[in-house]
């Protein structure tokens, strides 16, 4: 039980977890020189 509470405290509630914003991944290709 204690570990479940700890997990909820660390990760937030399951509902909030489901609403976590998506992190989009953008790939970039250029013929230029890298910065």
């Amino acid at each position, binding site marked *: 039980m204690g570990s479940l509470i700890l997990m909820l405290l660390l990760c937030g509630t399951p509902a909030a977890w489901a609403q976590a*914003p*998506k*992190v*989009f*991944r*953008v*790939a*970039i*290709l*250029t*013929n*230029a*020189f*890298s910065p």
Partner: protein
Amino acid sequence: MEGKNVTFEARAAQGDTSRLPELASELVGLKPDLLYCNGTAAAQVCAKTTERLPILFAEVGDPVRLGLVKSLARPGGNITGMANLRPELTAKRLELFKETVPSLRRVLVTYDPRQPEDQESVAVARTAAGRLGLMLLERPIGAPLEMEPGLGELREGGRDGILIVQSGPHLNILGRSLEVATSNNIPTMYPASFWTKVGALASYGPDQYLQGKQAARLAHKILAGTPPRDLPVELPDRIEFSVNLKTAKRLGLKVPPPALNRADRVIE
């Protein structure tokens, strides 16, 4: 915001277009939500590498003529982006060069004949040069060292100049031309104001910062779920003419007031 809701994975070919296919395959293998390609060569390679992932391009002259999209209004497929009108702006660029340096008689244009947009830009420059009474010194090259004889033909004094028709680092035409122009006192006309800030005499072309903002808006729409085929290709919001008066002074040139009045940006 980077790191919060978006992450970036970038690959740069360091001016060597032969590396682009390998780098594009590597990026496609990462299964990104969006593939952003900067420059004509990169966009062409990305389009060949994936027909599934959304692709956004920038710094491409005419994407319809290159076969990247079916039309500007309805791109079709998995790709859209920003067209920079590179060949179309060449005539106006040469005209403004002549207005900025009225003594101009011979203009060197170095280009890669393997690049369709280079060829097209030179053809536009040729027609404009005839109209303006200028001699166009056309020098096709296939390797960076091949541009040296053409650059060596130019003499200081305001009769000779360099017109740049490229926007990318391919063959290092932009960088090397400016080096020689600076050491030999030759006036130059570039396609972007970045180059006037670093010593070119003048530039005429799309505002690159604003182009980046426009591309970011398109990227946002694609990431929010709009397929690229439904997003028309955008043209630059703003085309700017820029003059560097410090360079003019160093070259011993007086820029006529009408040209200065037309400039959107004057570096003093």
